[in-house]
């Protein structure tokens, strides 16, 4: 799934030495605003203004695996939209703020039943290898069937992403 954001700004990194007098603190490091390069110099996060775009590729396998893993082991029933937004949220926060996002264009290849079957099989095979008893395996199969149904339900990923990420309205 390709998510293309039109943005009016983004995060980038510069050497702290380019900003005379800047003080890098432990709080900046913990907040992911500063980091050390391999040569020991400090890099700081800067915010740039630009009319540009940001691209994310969310593998469909990741969506399938996350939905199955969360259902089987965390008891969380996620939709395909929620899983996609999860990956986008955790990726985009390192690149910019939601207020930078003007527009989202989503190229969604759609749910892939065959791929989900492969992911489900891999989880069930591992459970069997790990020695799960028959009752546990049967419960897992039921959960996987429910996840698969939920995964294949028609949804609006583009709408979900727009609702969650596009905050700033473009000035006409």
């Amino acid at each position, binding site marked *: 799934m390709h998510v293309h954001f039109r943005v009016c700004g983004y995060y980038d990194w510069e050497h702290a030495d380019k900003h005379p007098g800047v003080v890098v603190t432990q709080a900046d490091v913990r907040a992911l605003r500063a980091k050390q390069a*391999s040569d020991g110099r400090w890099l700081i996060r800067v915010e740039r203004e630009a009319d540009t775009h940001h691209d994310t590729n969310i593998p469909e*396998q*990741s969506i399938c695996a996350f939905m199955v893993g969360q259902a089987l*082991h*965390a*008891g969380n029933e996620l939709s395909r939209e929620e899983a996609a937004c999860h990956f986008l949220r955790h990726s985009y926060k390192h690149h910019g703020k939601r207020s930078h996002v003007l527009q989202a264009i989503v190229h969604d290849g759609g749910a892939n039943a065959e791929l989900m079957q492969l992911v489900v099989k891999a989880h069930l095979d591992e459970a069997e290898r790990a020695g799960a008893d028959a009752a546990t395996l049967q419960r897992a199969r039921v959960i996987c069937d429910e996840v698969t149904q939920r995964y294949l339900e028609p949804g609006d990923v583009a709408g979900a992403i727009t609702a969650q990420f596009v905050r700033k309205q473009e000035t006409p």
Partner: protein
Amino acid sequence: MNSQVLYVAPSTSKRTRKISVREAGRRAKVQLSPLAYTHWHLEVRSKRGRLRYSDPGWRRNLTTDTATGYTNRRDWQSKLMGGGPNMFFGATASGSATATGATSLTNASASFPTAGQALAGSIVAAGPNTSGAGSIAWGVIVSNTATVLTIDQWYNPGTGAAATTPNATATYQILPGQFAAPYLAVTTDSVAPAASDTTLASELTTNGFTRALGTYAHTAAASTFTLTHTWTASGTDTINKEAVFGAVNTTGGGVMPFESAEPNAPTLVSGDTLQNTVTITIG
């Protein structure tokens, strides 16, 4: 002939003798620090989403710049960007296979390059044979002889999942350059990373931590891109190291340009999620 002095490297001591560039070059025994900055950040959350552990900031990690073979970061990156020494190597860069397998493609009439790292890291794309039979797939070459390409697996071009082995007489093309390194993997092994590493020792393949295709993200003209992934644990494991790979499985291996160690290795239990982010600064 006197040559105009353009720059004198600063020194903390007034007694440091000035030396020529030639002399400094002869004295250099240690490789320069890598110019590709890479950093990792890891978070662990409980099944209810509560943050249980977070790295204290970005960790800069190691680049495998002294590894032997095609997994060396510098070798991979130069071929990725410059095409490599076997770009357009000859007529048998494309043709018809004489045999295919789950991890191989053979052309008995081929003359594939075998010197140095040969074709390792390049992509071979296979399609229906001249009669139109067979599927489309591609694989990452991990090694080769003059007539046999060994790959990590066949990939479905649309999803990246494992694909059916192409027809035994499939048509094929070997593409110049190198495949990317978009896969993330973790391990319980606690031995410190080394620039000569070519694999992630004791890489996890169970408990939900299989090597995974990362979510790629980049803002146009920014100096970084990221790969992220979230694993859901199905058992208990302590995560000590992570790495980036150019192949989907441990059998194929693939290039391993970046590797990092956790300063305070977190232990995950079933239902926890491991959110891993690697940021690569490309300048």
